[in-house]
C-alpha cells in the first residue's frame, strides 16, 4: 500500500490553535495502527475559523477536516478519514468551500497547497517561471511589465511599483539595494506573515526579479521580531535557494548575482515607515528621515534603494509569468489586480480573502465573514490598520478601491478589516488611537509627539463631561495640527481613526 499524505498547517495561526499537537497525534495514531502516512506541514488556506484544518490526499482529491483538536484524531481514524470518510468535522474539498472558491487567488495561489519549504514542490506548482522569463528580458522590459500591470504598493501608501523601480533603474550607482518591508506592524493584518510562512519562495523569487530589474545585488528582508515562525520559514527557504542556485553569485546559471539577508526589527511600529526602516537596517534609532531625497535615489547606506512590501514583491512572479495584462484585468478604476484582505476582530469567519478590487466592505463582512463572531450586529469596522478610519454601517457599501476610500476619508492600507460589534465604545477606540500614536512616535516632530499625548487628555476631558463641546473643538484643532504638521503618516494619519469615530459615533462621546 502506498503512503497517504496528510496536510497539517505549520502556519502560526493554526499552531496557535493546536496544530502541532494535531500533527503529533496523527503521526502517533498512524504508527499505532500501522498505517503508512506522511504528514506534510503546509501553509494555511486562510480559513482561520476552521483551523487547525487537516487535509488528506485521497483518490478523489484533497479532503479537508476542521477545526480538528488532538482529541478528535482517534475518531477521525475510526471514521477512515484517510480515505475521506464521513465525520462531523468533514469539510470536503477546500475548492468546494464558497469562502475559498469565490476568491481570486493570484499572489496566494500556492499558500496552503504546497509544502512551503520544499523547492521541488514550488517548482512543480509554477515556481520560478517568472524569474525564468525575467532572465530573458532587459531590465527596462521587466520594469515596463510591472508598470503596465498597474500594481500599486500593498504596504499602505499605494504608490505605483513600476514608477518606483524606474527611478532606481535610472539612478546610476556602484551599489543598489532592495529592501523588503516585512514589518507588518498594522494591527488587523497578517497577509505578509501567512505568505512568508506559506510560500516563502514566491517572495524570494519576486525579490530576485526586482533586483534584476533595478540592478540591485544585495537585498534585505526587514522582518518584525514578533514573527518567529515566518523567520524560520524564510531562513529555511533562503538556505535552499542558495543551495540550488536561485540565490547567490550565479542565479540559474545566468551570471547574475543577488544576495539576500533577513534582519529583525525590535518592536517599533514606526520602523514600518520606509525611511525609519532604512535607519533601523543601518543599525540606528528608527527616526523618520525627511524627504527628499527619496529612498529610490538615496536610500540604504545612501544608495538607491527599492523598498517594497512583502505582498507587492510576492505578486511580481505571477505578473512576469502571465504578463501585465493578465494582472491588470482584475480590479476596478485605478486599483488593479487583487487585494489580500484580512478579516479579523469580531467576525465569524476570519481569515485571508484575496479578491479583485471592487468587492464591497459589506460582502467581505457578510458573504465572506458571516457577520460578527458574537452574533450581535456589526457596528463599526476599522480598515487599514491603526491609522485607518472607522466605518459605520452606512458606509459598508463602499467598494475596495483606493479612490473610493479616499473619497470617504478612509484608507485601504495593507487591507486589514477589523470588525466590532455593538458593544464597542468608540470613544475608547479614539482614545486608544491617540495612546498608540504617543507610544510609537519616533519623537521627531512636536505635533505627533506632544499632540498625541494631548489628544488622550482632551478625549478624557470630553468624556468627563466638563465643557465637552469646547474640548470636541479642541480635539478637531489638534487633529488638524497633526495632519498638517507631521513628517510622516503616524502623526499625520492618527486623526483618521479619531475623527471618524467622533464623526460617525458622536453619541459615544457623550457620557451621562
Amino acid at each position, binding site marked *: 500500500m502506498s503512503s497517504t499524505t496528510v496536510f497539517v498547517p505549520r502556519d*502560526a*495561526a493554526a*499552531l*496557535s*490553535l493546536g496544530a502541532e499537537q494535531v500533527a503529533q497525534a496523527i503521526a502517533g495514531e498512524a504508527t499505532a495502527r500501522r498505517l503508512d502516512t506522511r504528514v506534510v506541514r503546509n501553509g494555511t488556506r486562510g480559513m*482561520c*475559523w476552521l*483551523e487547525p484544518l487537516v487535509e488528506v490526499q485521497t483518490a478523489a482529491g484533497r479532503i479537508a477536516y476542521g477545526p480538528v483538536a488532538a482529541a478528535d484524531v482517534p475518531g477521525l481514524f475510526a471514521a477512515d478519514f484517510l480515505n475521506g470518510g464521513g465525520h462531523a468535522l468533514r469539510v470536503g474539498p477546500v475548492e468546494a468551500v464558497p469562502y475559498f472558491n469565490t476568491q481570486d487567488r493570484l499572489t496566494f495561489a500556492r499558500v496552503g497547497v504546497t509544502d512551503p519549504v520544499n523547492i521541488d514542490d514550488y517548482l512543480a506548482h509554477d515556481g520560478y517561471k517568472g524569474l525564468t522569463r525575467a532572465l530573458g528580458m532587459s531590465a527596462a522590459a521587466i520594469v515596463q511589465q510591472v508598470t503596465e500591470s498597474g500594481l500599486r504598493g500593498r504596504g499602505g501608501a499605494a504608490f505605483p511599483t513600476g514608477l518606483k523601480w524606474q527611478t532606481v533603474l535610472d539612478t546610476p550607482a556602484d551599489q543598489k539595494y532592495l529592501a523588503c518591508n516585512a514589518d*507588518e*506592524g*498594522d*494591527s*488587523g*493584518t*497578517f497577509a*505578509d*506573515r501567512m505568505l512568508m510562512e506559506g510560500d516563502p519562495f514566491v517572495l524570494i523569487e519576486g525579490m530576485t526579479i526586482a533586483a534584476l530589474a533595478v540592478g540591485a545585488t544585495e537585498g534585505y528582508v526587514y522582518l518584525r*521580531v*514578533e*514573527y*518567529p*515562525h515566518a523567520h524560520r520559514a524564510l531562513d529555511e527557504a533562503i538556505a535552499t535557494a542558495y543551495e540550488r542556485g536561485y540565490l547567490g553569485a550565479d542565479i540559474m546559471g545566468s551570471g547574475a548575482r543577488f544576495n539576500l539577508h533577513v*534582519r*529583525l*526589527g*525590535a*518592536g*517599533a*511600529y514606526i520602523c514600518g515607515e520606509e525611511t525609519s526602516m532604512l535607519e*533601523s*537596517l*543601518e*543599525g*540606528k*534609532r*528608527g527616526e523618520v528621515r525627511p524627504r527628499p531625497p527619496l529612498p529610490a535615489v538615496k536610500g540604504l*547606506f545612501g544608495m538607491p534603494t527599492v523598498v517594497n512590501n512583502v505582498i507587492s514583491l510576492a505578486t511580481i512572479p505571477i505578473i512576469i509569468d502571465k504578463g501585465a495584462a493578465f494582472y491588470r484585468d482584475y480590479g476596478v478604476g485605478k486599483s488593479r489586480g487583487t487585494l489580500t484582505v*484580512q*478579516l*479579523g*476582530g*469580531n*467576525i465569524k469567519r*476570519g*481569515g*485571508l480573502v484575496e479578491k479583485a478590487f471592487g468587492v464591497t466592505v459589506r460582502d467581505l463582512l457578510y458573504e465572506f465573514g458571516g457577520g460578527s*463572531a458574537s452574533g450581535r450586529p456589526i457596528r463599526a469596522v*476599522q480598515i487599514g490598520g*491603526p491609522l485607518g478610519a472607522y466605518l459605520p454601517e452606512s458606509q459598508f457599501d463602499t467598494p475596495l478601491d483606493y479612490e473610493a476610500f479616499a473619497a470617504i476619508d478612509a484608507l485601504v492600507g495593507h487591507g*486589514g478589516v*477589523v*470588525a*466590532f*460589534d455593538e458593544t*464597542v465604545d468608540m470613544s475608547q*477606540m479614539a482614545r*486608544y488611537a491617540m495612546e*498608540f500614536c504617543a*507610544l*510609537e512616535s519616533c519623537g521627531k516632530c512636536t505635533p505627533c509627539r506632544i499632540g498625541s499625548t494631548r489628544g488622550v487628555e482632551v478625549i478624557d476631558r470630553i468624556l468627563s463631561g466638563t465643557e465637552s463641546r469646547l474640548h470636541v473643538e479642541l480635539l478637531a484643532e489638534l487633529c488638524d495640527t497633526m495632519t498638517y504638521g507631521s513628517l510622516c503618516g503616524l502623526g499625520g494619519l492618527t486623526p483618521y481613526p479619531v475623527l471618524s469615530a467622533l464623526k460617525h459615533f458622536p453619541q459615544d462621546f457623550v457620557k451621562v
Partner: protein
Amino acid sequence: MDSVDSIGTETIGRIVARLRGLPGALLPVLHAIQAELGFVPPAAVPLIAEGLNLSRADVHGVISFYHYFRDAPPGRHTIRLCRAEACQAMNQRALEAHAKERLGIDFHQTTANGTFSLEPVYCLGNCACSPAMMVDHELYGRVTRDRFDEIVVAWEDR
C-alpha cells in the same frame, strides 16, 4: 544590574567579534546578546560601543528606542499580550485585567518567583483568532480567561 559577570563579558565579546563585519551591525548584535542572555546588560554598552566603533550614547540611544530590547533580566518566560484593535474587539480588555490579576503583576513586571514577565504587544498577526498572546516563541489564539490559566499552568513547569 550594573556589572556583567565574566560569562556575560565573554558572550558579548564573542558576539561582537562574530557580527562586527555586518553592515549596520548594531541591531543584529543586540538581538544576539538578548537571545543568549535574555537582556542587554547596561555594562555591555561600552563593550559594544568599542567593538563597533560607536559612541556609548549611540548604543544606549538605540537600545532605548526599541521596545523589544530590555536592560534587566526577564522572568523564565515572557508573556506578550496583544493590546491592539482586533483583540480589543474580542474582549482583550477583560483578558488583560484577568492576566494581571492572575499573575499579580502589571505590564513590564516580573512575578516574584521569577517565572513570568508580562509585556504588552501591538498585534501578533493573529487577528482572525483574537485575542492573541505569545509565550516565549509560541503563539496562542482565542485566549479566554480559562485558557489563559491553563496556558500559564502548563508553562510554569517548563
